[in-house]
């Protein structure tokens, strides 16, 4: 297998009439990476993928695959294979014909194709199912056939457009692991599109987080989760509690934020924004539910938050407390269930505590809407 063909998007703009679907995207995808584009519905993920596969021409900028400019090269000539959001298996062809369609085009004999189909069917754990029609397969099986069909074309880059979105939760989680394994085995570059941050975090080497045509941040899962560079990324990737306010003081790479509701709180400044935030700027501070814990009532300081408990719930692996928060949004506190007794706080005023390194401050910006 040809390992390690990278993909670069350089100053990529895609417009539909006056509407800008992708705005100045710059992305370097290393060869052999599992790279995800993560963003809410309609943010331009499919549009980017279609420009890589050749179905859409960039309005401006370039798409490079393996260092070669792809301008003027059609989808049937690019070293990419696309797995469609709805799979697009050929309903009138048997499974093995579907899988080896790319070989049929190159004029391979039926015998060769059969052999290759059987190999790929073994790989996707569907041995002996080659003579079925796609309509006779389950959702997860169709999924795997679509992957085999794309892999059979021996692409350098496999493009996947939310291929798991139609599956139920259990199967989706199972297919995540399977996809990651297949990617490691074949060693080619995968570009994966999803609006599900769990999928992106579990599978990807690197993630680009998108919002309305703009790429907000590119980084590995840990970076994107722990060190978001914008308010959108902080609120879109994983659950987060937001505290709005103004920067009161900068202390190296930490900031003291005068929050609207919870007094002065101290926080780390996210890496991308260090040196760029000034006293008086509107800021947002984020703390994850699992980074908050209950402190002794009455304690106060720049890493304590006092709030009234609205309601509580038991989720199995954790107890969740919801308190009054900023701008009508509740603050969620998630306490791991280690078998401890858990008293009911509903209606009480409680004090929450966090460690400075677990709070992150970014310039105020648009939040992801759920």
């Amino acid at each position, binding site marked *: 297998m040809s390992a390690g063909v990278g993909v670069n998007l350089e100053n990529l703009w895609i417009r539909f009439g006056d509407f800008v679907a992708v705005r100045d995207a710059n992305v370097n995808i290393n060869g052999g990476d599992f790279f995800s584009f993560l963003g809410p519905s309609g943010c331009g993920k499919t549009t980017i993928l279609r420009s890589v596969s050749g179905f859409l021409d960039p309005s401006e900028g370039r798409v490079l695959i393996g260092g070669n400019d792809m301008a003027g090269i059609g989808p*049937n000539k690019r070293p990419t294979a*696309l797995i469609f959001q709805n799979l697009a298996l050929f*309903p*009138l062809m048997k499974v093995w014909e579907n899988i080896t*369609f790319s070989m049929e*085009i190159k004029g391979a004999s039926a015998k060769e194709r059969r052999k290759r189909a059987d190999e790929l069917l073994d790989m996707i754990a569907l041995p002996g199912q080659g003579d079925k029609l796609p309509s006779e397969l389950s959702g997860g099986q169709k999924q795997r056939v679509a992957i085999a*069909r794309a892999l059979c074309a021996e692409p350098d880059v496999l493009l996947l457009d939310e291929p798991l979105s139609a599956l139920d939760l259990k199967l989706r989680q199972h297919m995540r692991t399977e996809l990651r394994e297949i990617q490691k085995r074949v060693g080619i570059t995968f570009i994966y599109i999803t609006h599900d941050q769990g999928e992106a975090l579990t599978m990807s080497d690197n993630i680009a987080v998108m919002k309305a045509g703009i790429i907000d941040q590119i980084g590995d899962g840990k970076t994107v989760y722990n060190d978001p560079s914008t308010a959108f990324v902080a609120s879109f990737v994983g659950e987060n509690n937001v505290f709005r306010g103004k920067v009161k003081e900068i202390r190296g790479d930490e900031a003291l934020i005068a929050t609207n509701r919870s007094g002065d709180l101290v926080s780390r400044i996210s890496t991308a924004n260090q040196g760029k935030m000034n006293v008086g700027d509107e800021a947002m501070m984020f703390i994850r539910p699992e980074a908050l814990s209950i402190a002794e009532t009455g304690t106060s300081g720049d890493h304590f938050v006092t709030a009234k408990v609205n309601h509580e719930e038991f989720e199995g692996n954790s107890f969740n407390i919801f308190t009054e928060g900023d701008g009508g949004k509740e603050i969620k506190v998630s306490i791991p269930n280690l078998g401890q007794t858990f008293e009911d706080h509903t209606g009480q005023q409680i004090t929450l505590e966090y460690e400075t390194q677990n709070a992150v401050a970014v310039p105020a910006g648009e939040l992801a809407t759920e």
Partner: protein
Amino acid sequence: MKNGFLKNFYQHNGKVMGTALLVIISFWIGVLIILPQLSMLDYSLREYLPSGEVGDYTLKNYRHLIYGAEGASDPYNYVDLKVFMRTIIAAICVTIFNLILCYPIAFFLGQVAKGMKLRVFALLLIIPYWINEILRAFALKIIFGATGMINAVLIGMGILDEPFDFIRADIALYAGLGYAYILLMVFPMYNVIESLDGNQIEAARDLGAPWWRIHARIVIPYAKPGISSGATMVFMLSAGALAAPQILGGPSSLWFTQIIYQWFNDGGNWSQGAAYAIVLLTSCIIIVLAFMKLFKVNMGDIGK
């Protein structure tokens, strides 16, 4: 199965409506289709008596098509058989010609054109059919005539020195027949092609297929039911056309329907006419079934 169908039918339409529909459909099939054809069959099997009395059963009328009138000089009825064969072959040619012409149109309408463009294009196809068939045929006759537009253009461009007789060469006839049934070919195909998921075309392209291969492997197999219902209608109607051959046919060209018409109308020999009509109908059905078998089309798919 049949019970299930009836039950379903009633559930879907309600008791009163369901019964009304069944009565109407039975009336339509029985009184308007089956009964007239049976009486035709009956006519064709009876001896023709000029007095108008009902004759005895005989195969004489069918014999006439093959061997000609008793005591004729030729061993076979060459004149009628030739017209019969020519009609069938010409109808097949018209169908194939129509298929080649209409497939790209149907594909364009079904997959390429969107929104406004689609509506305008469809309207352009339909509007000419507001004009009745006879007028359309005469219009073609004028266009193809010796002083018609086509000859004028060809002479004007210096391609021809003197007018070409398109009517004598039957070109006007084929064009007229082809044009008459374009919609019947386009719409069933359009219907099916329109329902084809565009992603399948893109998937094939993404896997490296050139455009002709996409049509051969993805679009045409998918459109087969539409193609066969369109082709069946065009073939049946061309073979049975009367107005177009009447108006656009050259002086020498007879269409088989014209002979049938003559038997019924000019000759007043309904038995003979009925026998010819029955032969034409059965032959057409056999040819359609043979083609369906050849291209592996199921009867059930045709309605799609």
